[in-house]
């Protein structure tokens, strides 16, 4: 980022008292300049929403008590993700819900208990303050639901055109129990593959919300934190071998990562893969494959066969996994390849996506 057009400062800075009010209706460069306007923005918009004992002292860094972390397990899980979704608001969520649940989920699928998040924002000059408030309120709400505290942050304002409205980066810290050890390399022949619910909702909702398609379908993003679902699964079984949330690149990408890392083959059955009729319909029209569409609240698990029924039942008993289904199995050969038995009775390779999924023309 160019130094000249960038201005900003730490949210947690020099013991600011929470008294400021934002008087402007739109963000301007002074909101990132370190002066009064920025102080007012931080106090009014961010501190008001995120208040918690770690953030409140407003130091340049958050102090996390090691003893409390150690109570939850023996390893830290640490992750970061940036959120640049367009449009900012879409059916089922907004960039704020994504920024919290996405990072919470990256922690959760390691088996970690998510605890702390950071929040760095890049604001484009001219953004409505009201828009920012809505996004921050969403972040607060999902953070509350996920039981995480937003403990440090940063705000930058860039000139109009230097960013698209609003970008968010969140980092997350969680703690993993000693007995939990999941990895994409742990799939074994005989294991069972489970999807936590219907696939492709988020990708479809965003495509429709971009309003380029003149398509009408009621599909909402599945954006949701998955920490509770993962906790329920871990309580049900010690033999969950692989776990990942199927975000960009969709379920197909996760399955390929498992197959390649574990040097096994994964065979799924199209008939058993849960996909909403509306999503199927949109994909038919656009020539897209729902297996490659993004999800923001779904995970794919590889579980030892003996525990599969038990894990599935635990997932279905949780609201985030009510539509969970067994979609396939792990076999030894051909290693590194994912195949699908089509509903029609044929079989095909499900590969990694090359480039963006572009609609076919005819």
């Amino acid at each position: 980022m160019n130094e000249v057009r960038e201005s900003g400062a730490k949210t947690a800075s020099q013991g600011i008292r929470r008294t400021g009010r934002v008087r402007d209706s739109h963000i301007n460069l002074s909101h990132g300049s370190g002066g009064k306007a920025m102080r007012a923005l931080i106090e009014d918009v961010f501190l008001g929403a995120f208040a918690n004992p770690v953030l409140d002292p407003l130091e340049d860094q958050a102090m996390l008590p090691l003893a409390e972390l150690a109570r939850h397990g023996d390893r830290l899980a640490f992750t970061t993700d940036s959120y640049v979704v367009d449009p900012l608001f879409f059916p089922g969520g907004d960039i704020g819900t994504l920024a919290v649940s996405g990072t919470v989920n990256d922690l959760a699928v390691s088996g970690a208990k998510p605890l702390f998040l950071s929040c760095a924002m890049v604001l484009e000059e001219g953004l409505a303050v009201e828009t920012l408030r809505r996004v921050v309120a969403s972040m607060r709400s999902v953070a509350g639901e996920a039981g995480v505290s937003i403990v440090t942050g940063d705000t930058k304002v860039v000139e109009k055109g230097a960013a698209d409205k609003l970008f968010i980066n969140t980092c997350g810290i969680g703690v993993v129990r000693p007995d939990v050890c999941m990895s994409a390399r742990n799939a074994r022949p005989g294991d069972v593959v489970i999807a936590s619910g219907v696939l492709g909702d988020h990708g479809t909702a965003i495509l429709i919300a971009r309003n380029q398609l003149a398509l009408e379908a009621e599909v909402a993003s599945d954006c949701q934190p998955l920490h509770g679902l993962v906790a329920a699964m871990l309580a049900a079984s010690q033999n969950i071998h692989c776990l990942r949330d199927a975000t960009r690149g969709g379920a197909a990408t996760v399955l390929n990562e498992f197959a390649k890392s574990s040097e096994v083959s994964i065979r799924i059955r199209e008939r058993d893969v849960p996909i909403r009729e509306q999503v199927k319909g949109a994909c038919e029209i656009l020539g897209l494959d729902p297996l490659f569409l993004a999800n923001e609240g779904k995970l794919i698990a590889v579980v030892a066969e003996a525990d599969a029924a038990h894990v599935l039942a635990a997932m279905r008993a949780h609201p985030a996994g009510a539509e969970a289904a067994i979609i396939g199995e792990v076999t030894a050969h051909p290693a590194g390849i994912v195949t699908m038995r089509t509903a029609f009775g044929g079989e095909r390779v499900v590969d990694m996506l090359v480039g963006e999924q572009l609609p076919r023309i005819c």
Partner: protein
Amino acid sequence: MKYVDEFRDPEKAQALASDIRRLVGCIPRARRRPLQIMEVCGGHTHSIFRYGIQQMLPEEVEFVHGPGCPVCVLPMGRVDDCVALAERPEVIFTTFGDAMRVPGSRKSLLKAKADGADVRMVYSPLDALMLARKHPEREVIFFGLGFETTMPSTAMTLIQARAQGVRNFSLFCNHITIIPTIKAMLDSPELKLDGFLGPGHVSMVIGTRPYAFIARHYRKPITIAGFEPLDVLQSMWMVLKQLAEGRCEVENQYGRIVAEKGNPKALAAIQEVFELREFFEWRGLGSIDHSGIRVRAGYADFDAERKFQVPNIRIADPKSCQCGEVLKGVIKPRQCKVFGTACTPETPLGSLMVSTEGACAAYYNYGRLDAARGAPA
């Protein structure tokens, strides 16, 4: 999904597949060499791979993946022309999505976009016209591409643009027509085709009559086919039945969409706006007489080739590429010298590797199952 699931019924598919096996036994030629049936249209190629249809057929029947993917037969020079137009500062260059990755000699449209050209993906030429009305200070060019399937919508857009008096909209016309191409392929001495699955969407526009010469002069059976997997299987069954009974006719499996006389309104729009070029360069197939389409003089104001200096670049296909032989079914994609090595979906040399309807991309994406199991190509 209603009207879709009915055409993907696995039990009906098994019944058809076993009937196909029985039929093949009645065709003496099939004992000497595999029967080669060409699916002309890229949409069929896509269905065949997506549903694993080839594996349901006996070894004596092979699909030959034809030239009917408009993105795949686009020569490099035309992509260079597109890039040159797109790089003009006043231009918003609009295109269907899957044309964006086709490699030119310098770069693809996707790369041109990354380099700063204003290239936008649209889903219909009408979207491009709307952009032109929204940005009167810019020149909006639509990259018209495809066979008779997409021609009517492009034609209607130009008719609307003229009626609305839009001055800043034009078409870079790369439409092509299927019949002269099929004829050129049938005249090719290397070809050993036994029959055709005819293109369903093209036929929805042009009807079934224009194919009569295939049966009459070239003595090959052809069945106009739909795109659902059962459509493809049933059409294959119909072609084989003709072969078994020694008939050569134009049959229509896709009767729910395709009328014998086609769509007169669509044909009228095409007639109003377009005329044949004397020849057009195809990727892999070379120049084919009367296979290209251009804008008529009456719509010259909307013709990007007349409005702008189009460099009209001609670039020979890369020497190592065997796209032409693949398109004619002379070799299988996997037999191409650069398949999967120098030419992959990530770094396509030939355009057959670009589109999901391209035979090479389909082989690469879906066909590796056979390769992994050690089955023949």
